[in-house]
């Protein structure tokens, strides 16, 4: 709408341009150009503004699309969106207040100087822009210096900050300082007042930025704020200089006037572009380029979690499990094993109870961050709170009001025991709700099969004294190791399906034996399908490490190791952990449909697609 208006005005203003083209020749044409707009520089300014606005709009769309990526989320996307609105409004107002356009309808409200100069350039343009930064600094201060959650949400803080400017504008509106409604000229002190308002907000921003100077930010928020502040200051200084020059040269400097306003608009575009693009360029580029670059690797890095972004050790990597998983350990220690955790997680998600497992997992990752890395702990804690604890959050877990309040009103976000009780409650809920049925589920069956196949293959390798086979060969289930012994071959290929589990839970350990001290599966009283793995069980861990080292002929770095594993279609059929989507209303996938598909295999249960 604004664009169309502008274009219309441009076309109307075009005939004003004198045939000579330049505005330095006759004073009359340059006067016309100065008074009514239409100089070449004005066209350029408008084009520039349009371009910058479009780019900002495009950037905002990209931000919205990528808002779940941790690096982008740390920039606070809602604030960035408000900022972009403010930027576009401000740029437009810069154009409108400088007499760049021939104003056709003298008293039109839309082209009134009051609207543009007092309101849209002030509170809702520059003010909005700066307030977003102030709000961001405010939140960073509270979270990282104060280690508490801010009392107001940032998006609510912005209107509060603007109150002052709105009051000033109201006061000015009452005073009616402009000579005519369409000519943006007034006494010099009015300009001083307006200018000092701009300066005041910039100073507040400087203050807030100074307050957080000592924090080392993972996602570079501080550097960006400083850059933003310095750019703002430079702009303001230049603006003041320009205005002074314009006033001083008021008499004959038409040219100066035209140049001045062009420079102003140009600077405005520069500052807006910098303020918008400096924070978001890197994360956006990373986010957008990953599908292209990461075609070889799987989706792991594209949808990574906050834990990975903060560099939690082993986060997201599918390292080989500890060789020994004793299945009668308490749930909490079972969950420490990655493969069990993944399998259990898949089961929980099939029961639409996945958020508790994810919560527990992320608290575990938080606990891996060392106590000295306070800033990262604060990031992670804040992320967990926003995702799992806040009422109405994406993956809200089922805890009491008291527990929630305790966490939200904490005085120290880096406290190692912040989520302790909630995590314990999560384990308790998993135990009482999910565990028993997990043992009887197909997910557990699959886990057991996977573990035992793994052990079998490594056992075969051991028997054949093979050390150098690349991991791919071993992991590829279709590959049959050549054996001379037909009995062994048949043993290898036939994975017996395990019968129904002991409904009392898994007593695969030798609980009956009473004296199993080893942490490993005690093979004295195990069911028959476990006995084959007996010999190789102890050597399993050693083998895996040997195989890993020999894979590339050199000690593989973690990332390469990772990409190889991903490419090889990993053992567990479930993929690497993607960030939980949790429950959003209006999900298409119907739980009943999934269950119908699963149940369809059971001939005793007749289902029809639900149609009523």
């Amino acid at each position, binding site marked *: 709408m604004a664009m169309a208006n502008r274009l219309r005005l441009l076309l109307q203003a075009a005939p004003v341009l004198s045939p000579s083209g330049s505005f330095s020749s006759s004073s009359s044409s340059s006067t016309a150009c100065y008074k009514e707009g239409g100089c070449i520089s004005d066209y350029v300014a408008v084009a520039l503004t349009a371009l910058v606005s479009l780019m900002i709009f495009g950037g905002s769309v990209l931000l919205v699309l990528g808002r779940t990526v941790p690096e982008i989320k740390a920039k606070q996307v809602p604030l960035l969106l408000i900022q972009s609105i403010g930027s576009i409004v401000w740029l437009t107002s810069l154009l409108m207040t400088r007499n760049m356009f021939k104003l056709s309808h003298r008293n039109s409200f839309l082209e009134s100087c009051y609207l543009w100069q007092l309101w849209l350039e002030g509170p809702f343009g520059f003010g909005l822009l700066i307030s977003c930064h102030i709000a961001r600094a405010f939140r960073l201060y509270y979270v990282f210096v104060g280690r508490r959650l801010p009392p107001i949400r940032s998006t609510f803080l912005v209107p509060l900050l603007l109150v002052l400017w709105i009051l000033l504008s109201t006061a000015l509106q009452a005073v009616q300082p402009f000579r005519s409604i369409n000519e943006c000229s007034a006494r010099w002190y009015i300009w001083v007042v307006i200018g000092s308002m701009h300066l005041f907000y910039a100073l507040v921003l400087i203050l807030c930025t100074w307050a957080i100077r000592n924090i080392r930010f993972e996602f570079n928020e501080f550097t960006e704020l400083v850059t933003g502040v310095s750019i703002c200051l430079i702009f303001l200084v230049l603006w003041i200089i320009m205005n002074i020059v314009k006033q001083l040269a008021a008499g004959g400097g038409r040219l100066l006037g035209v140049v001045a306003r062009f420079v102003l608009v140009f600077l405005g575009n520069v500052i807006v572009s910098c303020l918008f693009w400096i924070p978001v360029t890197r994360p956006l580029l990373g986010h957008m380029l990953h599908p292209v670059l990461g075609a070889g690797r799987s989706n792991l890095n594209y949808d990574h979690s906050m834990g990975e972004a903060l560099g939690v050790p082993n986060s997201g990597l599918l390292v080989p499990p500890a060789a020994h998983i004793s299945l009668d350990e308490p749930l*909490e220690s079972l969950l420490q094993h990655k493969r069990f955790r993944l399998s259990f997680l898949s089961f929980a998600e099939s029961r639409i109870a996945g958020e508790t497992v994810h919560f527990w997992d992320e608290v575990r990752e938080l606990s891996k961050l060392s106590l000295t890395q306070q800033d990262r702990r604060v990031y992670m804690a804040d992320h967990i709170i926003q995702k799992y604890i806040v009422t109405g959050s994406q993956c809200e877990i089922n805890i009491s*009001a008291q527990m929630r309040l305790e966490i939200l009103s904490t005085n120290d976000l880096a406290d190692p025991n912040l989520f302790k009780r909630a995590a314990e409650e999560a384990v308790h809920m998993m135990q009482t709700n999910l565990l028993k049925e997990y043992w009887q589920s197909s997910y557990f069956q699959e886990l057991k099969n996977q573990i035992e196949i793994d052990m079998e293959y490594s056992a075969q390798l051991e028997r054949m004294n093979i050390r150098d086979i690349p991991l791919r060969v071993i992991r590829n289930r279709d590959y049959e190791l050549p054996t001379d012994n037909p009995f062994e071959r048949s043993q290898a290929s036939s994975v017996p399906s395990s019968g129904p589990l002991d409904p009392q839970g898994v007593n695969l350990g030798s609980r009956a034996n009473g004296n199993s001290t080893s942490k490993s599966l005690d093979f004295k009283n195990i069911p028959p399908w476990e006995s084959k793995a007996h010999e190789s069980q102890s050597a399993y861990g050693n083998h895996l490490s040997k195989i890993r080292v020999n894979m590339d002929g050199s000690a593989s770095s973690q990332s390469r190791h990772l990409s190889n594993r991903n490419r090889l279609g990993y053992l567990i059929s479930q993929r690497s952990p993607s960030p939980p989507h949790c429950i959003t209303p209006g999900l298409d996938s119907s739980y009943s449909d999934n269950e119908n598909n699963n149940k369809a295999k059971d001939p005793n249960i007749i289902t029809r697609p639900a149609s009523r």
Partner: protein
Amino acid sequence: MGCIFSREAAEQGDIRDTIQAREIDKRIAQQSTAEKKVQKLLLLGAGESGKSTIFKQIKVLFQTGFDDSEKKNYTGVVHANAYQSIKILLDGLQEFSESEQEKYTLLPENKAIGEKLTEIGNRTQQPPLTEELAQQIEALWKDPAIQASYLRANELQLPDCASHFLNDIHRLAQPDYVPSKEDVLYARVRTMGIVETEFSPVGETKKRGELYRLFDVGGQRNERRKWIHLFDGVTAVIFCAALSEYDQTLFEDESSNRMIETKELFEWVLKEPTFEKTSFLLFLNKFDLFEQKINKVPLNTCEWFKDYKPLTSGQAEVENAYGYVKTKFEELYNESTPPDQRLDRVFKVYKTTALDENLIKRTFRLVDEVLVRQRLMDAKML
């Protein structure tokens, strides 16, 4: 042509015919069983309204029930409930003693036990319930301060099974304790996610009835977001509302009244577009607790029931109050259902106590009748 067919051939022809006939019969039988659609039932309701107890009752009544090993699995839960209950009462003491010091202070001999049990209640892995611990818990339970705290249990988040377990704590502490069927039904586990089962209510004539698929859900606010997965093709919604919760606050938000929450939830569920033709069976649950409470705590403490005037007292009052609550829910149903829809879908109210096996069996028989009738009506209309 007759001499070509030997007798053997004729016999073979007969056999072939018989086989064919048998095939056809089998196919017809398969078809008619395929005609029976599995009916989808949802158990919805706010937190702690009795949904999971009904779910357990279904298992007891129409499935295999709880065998000994399954009952043993509940030992941990029962003990945890006992520890939790006494801990909540102790925490309540802390809160209440801020205003009235003497009334809510433990007897001196019980102070140490109080601290110990608060600490135990906070752990995830709780110690097994020994005789010694049971004695200590009993001592605390009998302490006048705890009893006073128990009188104000509606201000705490005390589970309803508290008195049942705490009164009987010695039995629970026996080394060979196996939870009784009653204990299993009383045991409180906050449901997370979605659980399902299938059952067939065996009719009077012992002929296997309809096949029902029953879904149990969590009732807290964050769990309700998951309900959306279940809303397609539902035959009937069994909405559980606890009658006795009119003076209690939510587990997940201590500033909201439970009855008001149930009211809003019921309204929301009724207005759900996928439930246009779904039958609604309202189970006004926890009638036993309602009976005990109604004479002590007036009904009009709840905002929704504020225009209720108690007429008498005793049993007549209970019936009176129940009638009032039922009317309120019926009004709510009528407000939330457009008039033309009221003919389409069935709405029935049942007074239940989920712990009472016979009552639930009778109720389900009625439910079954209603649903069968509805299904036939739908079929006729088709």
